């Protein structure tokens, strides 16, 4: 017990400190203004923890892996948790999980809740197996219910662009804690898909170990229980596969209106993205231009709170690939800078009636001037050069939109789905 407390306090101090550290770093003068001996302040970065924390969850990483067939280096942490679960059941839950510890603490304030828990239906395994079933069909359900992702969202909340929708990131963890106050243990033992995963793995481990002890035959009750368990898993997995598959097909057929949103570069195709995104807020926090926002309903109801790019005042900077390094489920792929620079997320379009050159006859071409990809060609019109977008080069970064002095602006980017790979 004391070990767990110590562990938690360490984690809490580091994690609670990291947002402040980030705020502090933002207040620092830029590197070229700082003397050499203070340069380390800029290198001080605990943001890696926000990748490590959700990556410890086998539910999150497993869901992303099954659906997207990709895993990052941080995913190895989930393998460690998985191993512990097979050997010791809910060991991670009881000894490491910071959300579990918080729930435990909060639950103690309510002494009368114990019998409520008995009547609480055990939803967790269903969430887990339906989620993983969906993952097999490429559409993992309930990843956003992962406790580590919820905690991460809570820690990120302070650092992502604020909006009515970003509030959800702050509320997720508080919701769980409120639930634990009303009915202690309900989250950890009845709802949490990560908890259910560990319990299932622990059961599997026990059975594997029992397999070696042939002299002890299983009791009848244990057999019946195992049978019920297998039936439930089968039902939930099958249901998840069918539901996930249907939603993806429907998304491809009817998903027209959400095709317009701009996703971070490297995002998996839209029909998978909405499910693979765990709503942890890592990409929104990582973006130095602060253009990655929590979506409202523009990406559809099922795409609420997923990351969308809103150009102006920032744009998707050509020297940056921060959002490509932080996604725990790899809904946003790990792209190196060169790959990211060749991934088109949107396409610019000129509105001639609002354009200073096309309609105003002025020497402008500011879009061409700023374009990092040389994607603006020029066409002579009434004696002045006028901008034309070269679709084979446009990455849709939106820099042209941010600098356009035209009426409103006259050049805008619109999201494209799926993202295109540009030739050299």
């Amino acid at each position: 017990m004391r070990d767990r407390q110590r562990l938690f306090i360490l984690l809490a101090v580091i994690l609670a400190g990291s947002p402040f550290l980030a705020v502090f770093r933002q207040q620092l003068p830029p590197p070229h203004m700082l003397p050499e001996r203070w340069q380390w302040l800029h290198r001080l970065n605990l943001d890696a923890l926000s990748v490590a924390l959700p990556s410890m969850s086998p539910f999150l990483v497993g869901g992303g892996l099954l659906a997207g067939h990709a895993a990052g280096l941080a995913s190895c942490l989930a393998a460690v948790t998985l191993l512990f679960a097979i050997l010791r059941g809910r060991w991670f839950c009881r000894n490491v999980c910071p959300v579990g510890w918080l729930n435990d603490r909060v639950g103690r304030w309510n002494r009368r809740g114990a019998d409520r828990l008995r009547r609480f239906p055990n939803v967790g395994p269903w969430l887990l197996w339906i989620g993983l079933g969906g993952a097999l069909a490429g559409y993992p359900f309930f990843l956003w219910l992962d406790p580590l992702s919820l905690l991460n969202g809570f820690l990120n909340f302070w650092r992502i662009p604020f909006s009515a929708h970003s509030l959800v990131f702050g509320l997720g963890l508080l919701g769980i804690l409120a639930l634990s106050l009303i009915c202690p243990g309900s989250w950890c033992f009845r709802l949490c898909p990560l908890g259910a995963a560990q319990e299932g793995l622990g059961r599997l481990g026990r059975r594997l170990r029992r397999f070696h002890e042939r002299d002890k035959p299983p009791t009848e009750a244990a057999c019946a229980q195992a049978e019920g368990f297998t039936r439930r898993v089968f039902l939930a997995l099958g249901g998840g596969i069918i539901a996930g598959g249907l939603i993806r097909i429907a998304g491809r057929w009817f998903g027209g209106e959400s095709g317009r949103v701009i996703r971070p570069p490297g995002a998996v195709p839209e029909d998978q993205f909405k499910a693979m995104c765990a709503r942890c807020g890592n990409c929104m926090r990582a973006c130095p231009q602060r253009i990655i926002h929590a979506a409202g309903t523009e990406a559809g109801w099922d795409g609420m709170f997923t990351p969308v790019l809103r150009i102006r005042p920032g744009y998707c900077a050509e020297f940056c690939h921060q959002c490509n390094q932080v996604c725990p489920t790899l809904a946003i792929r790990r792209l190196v800078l060169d790959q990211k620079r060749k991934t088109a997320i949107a396409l610019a379009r000129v509105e001639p009636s609002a354009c200073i050159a096309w309609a105003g006859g002025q020497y402008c071409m500011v879009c061409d001037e700023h374009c990092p990809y040389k994607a603006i060609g020029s066409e002579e019109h009434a004696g002045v050069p006028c901008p034309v977008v070269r679709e084979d080069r446009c990455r849709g970064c939106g820099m042209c939109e941010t600098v356009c002095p035209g009426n409103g602006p006259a050049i805008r980017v619109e999201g494209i789905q799926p993202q295109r790979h540009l030739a050299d």
Partner: protein
Amino acid sequence: MNEITRRDFLKTSLAGAVAATFGGSVLAEEPAGSEVIVVHGADAAAMLAAGVERLGGWSAFVKKGKKVTLKVNAAWANPPEHGSNTSPELVEACVKACLGAGAGEVVLPENPCSPPEQAFEMSGIARAVKSAGGRMISLRDDRLFKHVELPGAKTLKQADVAVDVLETACLINMPVAKHHGSAGLSLSMKNWMGSIKDRGFWHSKGLHQCIADFSTLVRPNLVIIDALRIMLDSGPRGPGKLEHPGLLILSRDPVAADAYSATLFRKEPSDIHHIRLAGEMNIGCADVSRIKVTRLDV
């Protein structure tokens, strides 16, 4: 490092002293502002020293203990080899020379096109300025601008201009010479667009006239155009086709410096509208045949 600084310091102050003693009388004979010094060489610091010496030495420009404002071009998050920003070695040499000549401080205000931090870092200029002892100012703060009227202007009647450009003891304009999609060429007068708040107004109300208008108000004490490498197309951002003339063009007359530099691109100065307009408005001499060109080889 220290040794070189001291030697540079001695050299420049000696040059200044020589110029102060003998240079004054030579200068007095010539019509001010129509002389252009073209320095050819490989070492930016030596070329700068030679060019400034011919114009009267640093002491003719830098006032002891007073501020020097150096307007370089650090607009783009590009490496120096692209030629889209002023060469960092030239910036470093100039800041050092100004401080060596007794300047109280050297400030470099810039409102870049790329995000400031990346523009200053990747251009190599931040590092150069820091090591030379100057101060880079990112003009991304409304408080750094002052609203001014331009009585001599035709289109640009008012503008928000960097305070450091308006209020300084010595104003040096040090652009890089390069192609520019809408302005034709980006030389010294165009470089002032990095010291104002609202560039959009210029583009929408007539870019060339606004460029010329601005030079009626802001008159640099010295123009140093970096033509060590010049970008021939795809400007102002590049990367484009490069040429390496290895030149510095120095003058007190921004229009003359721009007009001469235009010839490096094999263009008639009158083809660049803002140079022609500036000449017509008598801001400086836009006629290359009337400019006295002095060539130096270092």
